[in-house]
């Protein structure tokens, strides 16, 4: 890796270290139980208006069951509206390119995908969706599905922080505050920065131009920046264009790339600090952030390095991948010159450690191990730093699991932040731990048995297997990135990946809310020297070990038959 690559990596970490605690503190106030929040003067009237429109009484607290029901109800209506919009877009305005109705299974898949914050796209944006659908359907879900994750997280943190409480807050209030106070202001700022770098924001259709050599080229238009800002901040990842953040109109320059990469990571990273503040122990938040950051850093450096080393088979046939002053080198198939291997590898790790899934390079064309990194990163449960809210939720579940093992080993009933972890919590934890492997391995296995499903592959053999495995890993973890060679817009994949996304989403959210409800009722035990501290490097290493071993043991056979064997046969 060149020194510029290292610097790029270091600057991104530095940016996060400076901005995440600040944003974390602000968000802790937004979700806090009392006290004034900066911006009340602007935001409060807007919120009050929304509460009045929606007939919500903002001071009513909800039990976990009611909270969960509200989440489900909101998600259901989101899905229905999005589905309907796609199916009827040909009759609706703002359709300058005259897109027809979206096919039923694609519409189902896309509606589930955006409602679950996955943003997997089995379609090509510029060929399928009208501007109206993009703007009032997909962009809206970019906002709210990301916010739902954060609401659930706020509920979980309250469950940990409260003592002998039966309620976890009010979903409608949390949702409104998340959108109004966090998502909208941040998105607006980021969108304007993106436009300043060349990301388009207009309502044009395709502009036909005559090129220098006299050919005709279609230059696309559309309100891209506003959607891209929230797609990154909300760890959504669904691109305005087919090639997502590799498209020059979505990601025009290296600086633009850095801003978007930061936007992908900032909210989930900041939430770690929010967590620390809300449970009244900032060290816990720092420890969580450290765990997240270490996984992310290892994966980033691995992807950057592996892609930078290139594909040995290209050297054999006459292409040079050497790093020189005049070329960035590395495995350039499926990468943009302006990003090179380093910025592409860094992005690949960032987009899969969160539930983002946008790509600025084609993971399918990565070297075998380079391509395994994003896949493995998702299989770790997307906790580094994870999707907005859901990442912290997943991390806290892994922490609860680690606490359980560690608690036994120090001879105490396991407890986290003073709350005892007992059979009811463990039941919910394993529900989550089981759900993701079930859909990933189950659907992958079913797919490779079906000739029609195998025919969707863009590559033969082990790599083709990786494409299928990647697709379900992405769906099951609500990521949305792809080994994009696979033709996923078939009835089978649209349906199964849709199911994978639903299970991946709600088998995290509902157990988490149930855990929150159960923990909230408990009386915390005071910490003594007999309680092991959960903010130390020792505990952080234990969590890292548990995360790695859970994923490693579950997925090693599958990975061995995909990327690992492909690597070994290079």
């Amino acid at each position: 890796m060149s020194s510029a690559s290292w610097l790029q990596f270091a600057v991104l970490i530095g940016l996060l270290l400076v901005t995440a605690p600040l944003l974390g503190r602000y968000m802790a106030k937004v979700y806090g139980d009392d006290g004034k929040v900066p911006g009340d003067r602007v935001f409060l009237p807007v919120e009050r208006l929304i509460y009045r429109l929606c007939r919500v009484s903002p001071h009513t607290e909800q039990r976990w069951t009611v909270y969960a029901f509200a989440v489900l109800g909101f998600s259901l209506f989101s899905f229905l509206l999005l589905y309907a919009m796609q199916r009827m877009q040909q009759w609706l305005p703002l359709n300058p390119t005259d897109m027809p109705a979206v096919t039923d299974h694609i519409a189902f898949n896309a509606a589930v995908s955006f409602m679950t914050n996955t943003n997997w796209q089995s379609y090509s944006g510029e060929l399928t969706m009208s501007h109206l659908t993009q703007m009032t359907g997909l962009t809206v879900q970019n906002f709210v599905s990301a916010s739902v994750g954060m609401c659930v997280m706020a509920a979980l943190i309250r469950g940990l922080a409260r003592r002998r409480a039966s309620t976890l807050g009010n979903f409608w209030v949390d949702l409104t505050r998340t959108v109004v106070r966090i998502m909208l202001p941040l998105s607006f700022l980021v969108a304007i920065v993106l436009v300043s770098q060349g990301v388009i924001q207009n309502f044009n259709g395709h502009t036909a131009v005559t090129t220098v050599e006299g050919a005709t080229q279609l230059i696309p238009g559309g309100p891209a920046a506003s959607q891209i800002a929230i797609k990154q901040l909300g760890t959504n990842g669904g691109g305005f264009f087919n090639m997502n953040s590799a498209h020059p109109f979505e990601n025009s320059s290296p600086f633009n790339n850095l801003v978007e990469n930061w936007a992908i990571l900032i909210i989930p990273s900041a939430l770690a600090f929010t967590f620390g503040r809300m449970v009244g122990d900032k060290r816990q938040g720092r420890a969580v952030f450290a765990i997240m950051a270490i996984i992310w850093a290892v994966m980033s450096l691995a992807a950057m390095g592996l892609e930078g080393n290139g594909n040995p088979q290209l050297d054999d046939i006459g292409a040079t991948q050497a790093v020189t002053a005049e070329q960035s080198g590395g495995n350039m198939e499926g990468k943009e010159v302006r990003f090179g291997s380093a910025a592409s590898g860094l992005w690949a790790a960032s987009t899969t450690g969160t539930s983002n899934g946008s790509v600025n390079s084609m993971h399918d064309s990565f070297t075998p191990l380079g391509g395994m990194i994003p896949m493995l990163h998702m299989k770790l449960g997307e906790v580094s730093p994870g999707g907005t809210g859901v990442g912290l939720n997943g991390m806290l579940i892994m922490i609860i699991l680690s606490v359980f093992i560690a608690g036994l080993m120090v001879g105490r009933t396991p407890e986290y932040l003073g709350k005892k972890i007992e059979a009811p919590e463990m039941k919910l934890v394993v529900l989550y731990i089981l759900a993701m492997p079930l859909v990933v391995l189950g659907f992958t296995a079913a797919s490779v048995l079906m000739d029609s499903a195998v025919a969707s592959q863009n590559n033969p053999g082990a790599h083709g297997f990786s494409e299928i495995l990647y697709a379900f890993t992405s769906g099951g973890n609500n990521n949305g990135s792809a080994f994009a060679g696979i033709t996923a817009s078939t009835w089978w994949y649209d349906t199964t990946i849709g199911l994978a996304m639903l299970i991946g989403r709600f088998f995290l959210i509902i157990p988490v809310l149930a855990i929150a409800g159960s923990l909230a009722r408990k009386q915390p035990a005071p910490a003594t020297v007999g309680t092991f501290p959960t903010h130390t490097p020792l505990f952080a290493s234990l969590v890292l070990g548990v995360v790695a071993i859970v994923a490693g043991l579950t997925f090693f056979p599958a990975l061995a038959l995909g990327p690992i064997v492909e690597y070994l046969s290079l």
Partner: protein
Amino acid sequence: MTSMSVQQPRRIGGGLLDPKQLWRSTPDALRKLNPATLWRNPVMFIVEVGAAFTTVLAIVDPTVFGWLITVWLWLTVVFANLAEAVAEGRGKAQAETLRRAKQGTVARRLHGWTEGADPAAYGEESVPATELRQGDIVVVEAGETIPGDGDIVEGIASVDESAITGESAPVIRESGGDRSAVTGGTRVLSDRIVVRITRRPGESFIDRMIALVEGANRQKTPNEIALNILLAALTIIFLLAVVTLQPMAMYAKAYQAAAPDTAALNQDGVTGIVLVALLVCLIPTTIGALLSAIGIAGMDRLVQRNVLATSGRAVEAAGDVNTLLLDKTGTITLGNRQATEFLPIAGIPAAELADAAQLSSLADDTPEGRSIVVLAKNLYQLRAREEGVMPQASFVPFSAQTRMSGVDIAENGTTRRIRKGAASAVLRWVRDNGGRAADDVGSTVDGISSTGGTPLVVAEQLEGQPARALGVIHLKDVVKRGMRQRFDEMRRMGIRTVMITGDNPLTAKAIADEAGVDDFLAEAEPEHKLALIRREQEGGRLVAMTGDGTNDAPALAQADVGVAMNTGTTAAKEAGNMVDLDSDPTKLIQIVEIGKQLLITRGALTTFSIANDIAKYFAIIPAMFGDVYPRLDRLNVMRLESPTSAILSAVIFNALVIIALIPLALRGVRYRPGGAASLLTRNLWIYGLGGIIAPFIGIKILDLVVRFIPGISG
């Protein structure tokens, strides 16, 4: 029964495993193969189903490899059963002894007994002890065995409780008060008592003990249930990983159609035997096999220390205890004040004071009195004169009125009167008898009081002379040896100790400081105890306490771990969730350790079990797919001989590790009192890292042996 010597801290051990025990338990282990009982252990049940499946496959298509795998899979289940059977077997041996005490006991049931009634006024019949009902009245005389648990309602007797406590010294039991409870199976040595039976047969202590040590009807504890959920989930995950591997293997095989068929993989995919082998190697069989043995052994260790727990839950709670309430008397101190010093007033030789004090205490049979005699002897070589040797002495007993005792000695025609007692009483006696209290008596007395001690003033009057004070005896509570060290240990474990005493705060503080407890509750009354426990629990703390009196019952019931002394009342025993047969209040400390050790052993073996899987993957995955993707052989980091030897070695290792760990499961992981962080570090290194490395070595060694079996070397 006051065996109050403090045991030096010793590590909780569980005795060694006798290899013969393994053999003796084998029939039991085989009986446990019955699926109807095994299904309760989901991990081992899966192994059994797998073993049955491979048996069928081996019969249909017999190969050396197939049969060897099948045999070792069955052995895996048997080994797991063996672990449980051995644990139960050791308990049974203990139970056998207990049961002997119970068998053939005949009860003499009384009809129409009323308190104080003449024995002639009520009838008596002989019934087997097993037919006794709650509320029955029985009479037990010297040489007879008490037929059931109950309270003495009439009489006093010395009882041999060695059958349940192992303590040979007889104890006194009498009606009324805090020593009225008797236990079925113990023997009356002298006198006659009438007992009201308080427990139905089958529920007596002995029955409960038998049930506990045998592990019969063992309820899973909360933590065990939580762990079982995790183990079940891991089993499902691995089942999923293995089942989905089949289509993936078929896909790979179809892609590499030219690859040769092997014992592990052919056109139909992975062979059933290899799939089952992989599954069994991956699911957490080690902890699954040993989990119930660990639980039984934990209760067993408790029983070995003469503690009966009514539930496993209480034992686990003991590991979590944050606050320990200890009665001062009997637990922290030797139970009685002892003379520690003679402080003469100016001009009086200390030896003279000691002599007078000793003389005045000769007839004093209280522990305080005896301690004065002993102290005088130790400090000034004053031999205690026997009461009978001094016919001319007449002793004045202590009375609540005078608040002093003493002796009048006729010597050489004159009478020497010595008095000792509370300062105010003795000084008044001195003044009444024409004397004058020396000034320094008052200051000495105040000095002793202020340090929490008890001053006794000694004065004498020779006939015809004014009385004079000789000095002051310093009585104080003596803290048992080793207590401070134990409390330091508790502190390192994160447990706060609170001393409960009826003393005034000053005295309490002095003793608390000396003993090294963290806090004290002075002038405590039973309701204060209860309030204290509630307060601690409000703060989320778990409280343990010991108690024996009826007035302790509410507090015992409220505490998370309430240990009743066996000498205590039935009410106390009912209220607590443990009974200490030795009535040793310091036992709590050991109970806490056993509770912790139980959890640690579970955690350590779970970690070990899961860590083992890494090596097994590296053994089996290359073996499965090495012929389809020859390059995958680079994952065969152990350089195992052949696919068949690799898989077989992994399966054998998986089975043998169960046997190897049975002693650890029974003994429990070593527990050293200390902070959680250091414990975690240590156990993670040993069982985490050890769990990763051990199978690499074990499987490699097995492979070196197994490769010589014909048909395995591939």
